[in-house]
């Protein structure tokens, strides 16, 4: 029987890792993800897992160790945040290019400078083109559930790609929430034993070279393979989400539709802020405003057809970005969603708000204001500000 517990997001993810019992983890601490590996290292010390925990001297080395261990045939997991992820950058592409299904918990935090340790999405959004599958979680429960599903998604023979499972730093990673842990045995059975479908380095009877030079005559074919593999991940995410639903009662898809079906005005908002926004959606619904919300879960691959179909009947949409894409016409979520809706015959009006950078609070009133603007926009039919910062002092 699953049990109700009170846990921080970090401890929940560490417990998912304990239940998965990966072969190798590499650890280098960075706030706010440190607690995951700190907790997990105690599981290792207590003999609750058989994991070989490699303590390394940097995140670049951490991802390198994961790449080596995964190429050797192991199931491999890791955790990081912000500048730690930035230092892994080179290796992120090597992990995905070599088609190694590593699972990384990214506890979202702002990138320096100035130094800030709090929740924002600059880190994982910057890595959106690195060839990793990206899952996002609203709360500790979803972070735990996504972590349990991640190995099954990445290791699927049609996919063979690394998975980044993201949650908001501090807001989720360090807040204690009531949630449900599955039984150890249930998770073990769900995830299954890992056996690589392609030859691995430790299989000395079938020697292979991993990561060789690949010039003009082959590189593009290998990128095409990767291109097709990440597209296939979409259906695998749906399948695994359904299977997880049978086990836990919590079925997952590509994104969450919250009162979106007949919505005239809608928000697109990622991670923890979606929880706050739902309160305002409920409040507006009571007042007769047809408000709705779309909370993305799978950002890479981006399910552009499905989100366009879910949002096509809205009049006005605001995409909320907890990350700037400096010099672009709005944040990264906005660019994707606006592009996805381009082919809709009567496309909704769309605006973008950049909020919550460096952990800046997004209050109920801030969301009320955004909805008010959307209602005005729907009536006037004219976009005056395409994208702007909110919750910022002038």
């Amino acid at each position, binding site marked *: 029987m699953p049990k109700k517990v009170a846990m921080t997001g970090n401890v929940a993810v560490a417990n998912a890792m304990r239940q998965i019992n990966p072969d190798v983890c590499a650890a280098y601490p960075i706030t706010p993800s440190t607690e995951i590996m700190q907790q997990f290292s105690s599981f290792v010390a207590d003999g609750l897992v058989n994991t070989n925990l490699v303590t390394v001297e940097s995140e670049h080395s951490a991802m390198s160790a994961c790449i080596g261990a995964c190429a050797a045939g192991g199931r491999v997991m890791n955790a990081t945040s912000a500048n730690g992820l930035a230092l892994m950058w080179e290796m992120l592409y090597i992990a995905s*290019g070599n088609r*190694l299904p590593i699972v990384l918990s990214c506890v979202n935090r702002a990138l320096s400078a100035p130094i800030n340790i709090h929740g924002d999405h600059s880190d994982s959004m910057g890595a959106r083109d690195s060839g990793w599958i990206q899952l996002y979680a609203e709360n500790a429960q979803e972070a735990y559930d996504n972590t349990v599903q991640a190995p099954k998604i990445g290791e699927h023979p049609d996919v063979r790609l690394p998975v980044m499972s993201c949650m908001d730093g501090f807001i989720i990673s360090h807040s204690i929430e009531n949630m449900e842990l599955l039984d150890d045995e249930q998770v073990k059975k769900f995830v299954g034993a890992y056996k690589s479908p*392609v030859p691995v380095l430790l299989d000395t009877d079938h*020697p292979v*070279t991993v990561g*060789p030079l*690949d010039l003009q005559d082959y590189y593009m074919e*290998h990128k095409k393979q990767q291109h097709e593999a990440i597209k296939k991940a979409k259906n695998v995410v749906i399948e695994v989400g359904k299977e997880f639903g049978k086990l836990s009662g919590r079925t997952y898809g590509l994104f969450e539709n919250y009162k979106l079906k007949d919505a005239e005005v809608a928000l697109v908002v990622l991670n923890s802020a979606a929880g706050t926004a739902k309160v305002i959606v409920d409040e507006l619904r009571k007042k007769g405003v047809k408000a709705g919300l779309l909370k993305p879960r799978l950002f890479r691959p981006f399910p552009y057809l499905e989100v366009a179909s879910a949002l096509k009947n809205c009049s006005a949409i605001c995409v909320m970005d907890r990350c700037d894409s400096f010099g672009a016409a709005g944040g990264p979520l906005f660019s994707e969603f606006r592009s996805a809706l381009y082919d809709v015959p009567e496309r909704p009006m769309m605006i973008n708000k950049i909020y919550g950078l460096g952990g800046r609070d997004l209050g109920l009133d801030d969301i009320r204001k955004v909805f008010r603007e959307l209602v005005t926009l729907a009536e006037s039919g004219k976009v005056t500000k395409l994208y702007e910062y909110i919750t910022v002092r002038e």
Partner: protein
Amino acid sequence: MSKQKGGPKGWKDLPIGGMITEAGNAATYNTGAWRSEKPIWIEENCIQCLFCWIYCPDSSVTTKDGKRAAFDYMHCKGCGVCAMECPSKVKAIVMVPEADGSAPDILDRAKAIAKKMADEKAAEKAAGKEAKDA
């Protein structure tokens, strides 16, 4: 680029991620195509020191019965280390432009280059001696 019959495989047929599943297949890779200069061996100048065999970074100097044999031009990248290290008074290895490398008279041209190099060196030495004597 469409897949050609007998040509390189298409993306659906290649091992994922550029993985190489055949051991030792570097032997079949024609790295000789990278050359811009080609080493020519002049057997009559060779003193059989085998320095070229020792120094060649690509094992492209072959031997037979302990003696210097032909270059392995399929793998020689034309780095020129062999020609540089050749200690013969008249060089037994000289570098020629790759475009001229297959000319029918290339050996004679190589011999002429070797002789010219030796003559220039001798002249330099003589000049140095004169300067010292003066």
